[in-house]
């Protein structure tokens, strides 16, 4: 409705806009300035702004392996989400028929119980005496003293599980828009189902795939719940370290590490979007 003028628009925008400016934008600047404080201070005595990147060099020296590990775990979980989420989204969009709505509800239903409680139940499922471990031992995929819990595999399983709906929903949204007659056209032109998928369906679902991978990768890279509940001290992710640094009162270092995480994610996302060629997403 173009005929309405700008003033009402600004008035409607103002409350939420001001809120986000005050509690999203300003805090990001405070985070950056906190990361430049002299770490010799404390909350009680106050900090001196040093404008010295010492906190950055310190945390990079200490935590680079953990940053790399977080990235790898998040990438593995994202890949697993694509592998599991694509068939599910495809089935809902094209094969489900009258089960469509029910399957969509089923995708979001796990959200209804708390994230933490669901992650804790993976502790039960992956436990040494649970049936999954027994079954894997029976087929010799797991050694007699092998563990599932407290391994990197458990952390990635948890991350995959927790962020899978974020992959399925955008994928479904873009698959659903595809005209079913395009599949028939592909078949009429003697393309095998696989060729039709590769040359028609997959390219058309790219916007959903890009959105899904971002919505999975970003929260997974910053998560520490799965690493803490399903992993061991050797599977710590960058979120664990940031939380521990804050708990220990090392605000400048914690802030520096947070800024590094944010910058790394923004850089990777921009690179990825350019490669995937879907700039219209932003």
């Amino acid at each position, binding site marked *: *409705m173009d005929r*309405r*003028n700008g003033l*009402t*628009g600004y008035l*409607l*925008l103002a*409350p*939420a806009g001001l*809120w986000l400016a005050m*509690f*999203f934008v300003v*805090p*990001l600047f*405070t*985070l950056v300035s906190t990361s430049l404080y002299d770490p010799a201070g404390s909350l009680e005595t106050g900090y001196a702004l040093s404008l010295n990147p010492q906190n950055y060099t310190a945390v990079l020296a200490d935590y680079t392996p953990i940053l790399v590990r977080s990235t790898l775990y998040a990438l593995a979980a994202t890949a697993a989400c694509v592998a599991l989420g694509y*068939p*599910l989204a*495809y*089935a809902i969009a*094209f*094969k*489900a028929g009258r089960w469509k*709505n029910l*399957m969509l*509800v*089923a995708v979001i*239903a*796990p*959200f*209804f119980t*708390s*994230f*933490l*409680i*669901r*992650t*804790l*139940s993976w502790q*039960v*499922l992956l*436990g040494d*005496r*649970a049936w999954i471990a027994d079954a894997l031992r029976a087929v010799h995929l797991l050694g007699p003293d092998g563990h599932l819990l407290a391994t990197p595999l458990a952390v990635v399983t948890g991350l995959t*599980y927790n962020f*899978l*709906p974020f992959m399925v929903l955008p994928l479904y949204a873009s698959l659903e828009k595809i005209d079913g007659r395009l599949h028939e056209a592909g078949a009429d032109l003697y393309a095998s189902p696989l060729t039709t998928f590769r040359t028609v369906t997959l390219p058309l679902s790219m916007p959903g795939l890009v959105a899904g991978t971002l919505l999975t990768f*970003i929260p997974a*890279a*910053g*998560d520490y*719940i799965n690493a803490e509940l399903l992993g061991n001290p050797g599977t710590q992710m*960058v979120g664990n370290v*940031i*939380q521990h640094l*804050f708990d220990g009162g090392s605000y400048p270092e914690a*802030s520096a590490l947070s800024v590094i*995480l944010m910058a790394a*994610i923004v850089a990777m996302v921009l690179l990825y979007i350019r490669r995937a060629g879907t700039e219209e997403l*932003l």
Partner: protein
Amino acid sequence: MIGYLRRNSVLIAGFGVLLYMFLPIFVVILMSFNDPASRNSYSFDGFTMHNWLNPCEPYGMCEAVGLSIRIGVVATVGATLLGSLMAFAFARHRFRGRSAANVFTFLPMASPEIVMGSSLLALFVNVGMGGALGFWTILIAHITFCLSFVVVTVKARLAGLDPSLEQAAMDLYANEWQTFRRITLPLVFPGILSAALLSFSLSFDDFIITNLNAGQSQTFPMFVWGAAQRGIPPQINVIGTVMFVLALTLVLMGDLNNRRRERRQSSE
């Protein structure tokens, strides 16, 4: 049989993935009836109704649930109100800087929780609220991260509306307010309602941002986190099951309602 499996392989794979998504829910429901042999029991040791009959037995748990509900309700009202106004601005008005503001609204959804939580904590500490962390700081944080989700949900609903309905009302001499009150609002309302439901569940469930900004207050997810270090009382699974059943009922009722309305409309 083999032909059937081949033809429906994608559907079967889809149901397999859904099973993976539901496994933990089954565990939560099952464990709510568990009679644990020890505090750190990871297995089902015996059936009991005790947990369901004494849900508030673990010290501090029901207080934590109460705090989460209070914060969830207030944060939902705040975020839904602010976010819906913003969604109307984006969907119904042209103004300078509109697309930049639109992109900006997505940013909170795209930043990792730990970054958002730590930047808010940095703000609170820098303005001298480091000692006053609690209900209000949690509330501010929750409204902030719910806002973008409300904007996106309500905007999607507004974009799906047929503009000719509003034009028809105007043609019939309804003024702008009457059109909004009688036509637009009732049509957008389901979107606002689902945005509110989404906000409440996001707020009720949040741990990472809350944990950084809560001070001495304890929300339900924080209680669960603390319990996870000491041994999990089975009552946590009772709360988990109740949440699941309640939310599922709400969603299925909404779905049923939509279907009934569609059938009525198509039969007219």
